[in-house]
């Protein structure tokens, strides 16, 4: 079984558009939406949830006011400034370390489970999907990404699928690291803007750091052809394969408004043809045998 993660560094370059199109083109694949704090893939693939599970990523301190003597030691020692002046736990700041519970001289503090979100297993028209929703403002997105990937692997085994396509999140931090570790290739979707290039370079360094094979796709390549040439030169110099260049077109947004993947909404368009090429080259790079 192969795993491919779609990343970008910069947000809004087209990760989800491409992942959703791949899901349609690949057939019999498992899709995992690992952008758990702003998941959008479900709006194109319309999954029907088969199973949902609570995600308890961490603990939170609970102060029993009847026992508390207001000594303030917990507040003093909390590394996260999570105990307020009137000795209440700030649920957003608390990282559940348990230092306050250990130090409380009258054992007024307990650590309780906190539900940080939900993970789902769903069926779509194109196959099965693992996804999740992190509650707004929660931490532990990396752990939830890992849970989504475990669910995807389980699905792949159950359904005898040879490929998992993972939609990653922007950035290079914990959820991205969790979504690329151990995959067969990372497809970096970029755009020919100075920010796109800057962020692409950082996400490529991240892949190098974690020994993930990089592939690059330049989306909206025609909005700045000089910058596109710059990306191509950079990739050539660093021996990174470019799997395709997709032109800018409003139909991508139109398809999104209709809740459809662009390859279904407008299969004959230049954009869709190019995405099909990108998919063909990507799957060959992954050595997947498909017809």
């Amino acid at each position, binding site marked *: 079984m192969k795993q491919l993660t779609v990343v970008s560094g910069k*947000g809004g370059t087209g990760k989800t558009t491409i992942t959703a199109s791949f899901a349609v083109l690949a057939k019999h694949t498992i899709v995992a939406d690992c952008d758990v704090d702003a998941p959008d893939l479900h709006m194109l693939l319309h999954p029907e949830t088969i199973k949902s599970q609570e995600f308890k990523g*961490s603990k939170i301190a609970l102060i029993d006011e009847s026992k508390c003597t207001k000594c303030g030691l917990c507040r003093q020692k909390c590394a996260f400034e999570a105990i307020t002046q009137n000795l209440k736990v700030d649920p957003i700041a608390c990282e559940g370390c348990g230092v306050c519970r250990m130090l409380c001289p009258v054992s007024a503090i307990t650590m309780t489970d906190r539900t940080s979100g939900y993970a789902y297993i769903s069926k779509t028209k194109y196959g099965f999907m693992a996804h999740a929703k992190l509650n*707004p*403002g929660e931490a532990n997105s990396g752990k939830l990404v890992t849970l989504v990937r475990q669910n995807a692997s389980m699905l792949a085994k159950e359904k005898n699928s040879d490929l998992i396509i993972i939609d990653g999140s922007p950035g*290079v931090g*914990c959820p991205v690291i969790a979504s690329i570790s151990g995959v067969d290739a990372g497809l970096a979707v970029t755009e020919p803007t*100075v920010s796109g290039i800057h962020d692409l370079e*950082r996400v490529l360094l*991240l892949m190098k750091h974690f020994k993930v094979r990089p592939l690059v796709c330049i989306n909206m390549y025609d909005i700045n052809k000089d910058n596109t040439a710059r990306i191509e030169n950079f990739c050539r110099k660093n021996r990174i394969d470019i799997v395709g260049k997709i032109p800018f077109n409003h139909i991508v947004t139109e398809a999104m408004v209709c809740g459809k993947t662009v390859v279904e909404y407008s299969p004959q368009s230049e954009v869709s043809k190019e995405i099909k090429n990108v998919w063909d080259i990507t799957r060959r790079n992954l050595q997947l045998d498909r017809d």
Partner: protein
Amino acid sequence: MIVSVASGKGGTGKTSVAVNLALSIGNAQFLDCDVEEPNAHLFLHPRIGRKEPIYVSVPFVNEKLCDHCGKCAQFCQYNAIFVSSDKTLVFPKLCHSCGGCFLVCPKKAISEEKHRVGTLKLGSAGNLRLVYGELEIGEPMAVPVIKEVKKHIEKSKNVILDSPPGTSCPVIKTVNGSDFCVLVTEPTPFGLHDLKIMVEVLREIGIQYGVVVNRAGIGDKKVYEYCREKGIPILLEIPFQRRIAELYSCGIPFSLEMTDWKHEFLALHDRIRELVNK
């Protein structure tokens, strides 16, 4: 006044709005809190005056004192310590620096060690001061770097904070403590979906907010319907224009070339001040 600029969805134009706003009001302080992928400097071309490493405290185990009792590993909620019968291993990238292991060790075998997680950069561009952080590649936790950037807020100035995308902890750390949060969205289903999550976040932490619609004209009208229904002010609309997109792609803040926009951004800042003072 401290104004943060956030979005939920990535690539909606946070940095573009934040940079043009800061340049238009002038004499402001700009803090780029998107430490995973900081971009504001690409538009502001600052002269960097100071560069400092950012460290967090992680445990260092003195094997001579350690008897491998395992209490530290048992205490650690983040699996950052592993103890075998003859060795104690620390995984600094998993450590949240809570300090619990130092306190729990009966042999006093654990001391603090500095672990580098990023770089802080301070500079200026014209009358604009820029502070930004850069997360070290391979480090998972952005929050300590964001905290370090925010330590340099000059409250006497007009401060603009550029937030990372998403809706989880790095975003909260960024917007927390600001007087107002500008939510930049695009009028598409993805833009609206992620805007709604950000609205929930801001309601929970109690920060006033308003919306800037970027790339107005594409997509549909649902963002407008949502804002009207919820009584959320739309502070500014930036149309989808090829010229704006081209300038952006070259790293040029569009209000510098299309100077009418300077007034629009000044008016945006005035409008925010009015809402904050109300």
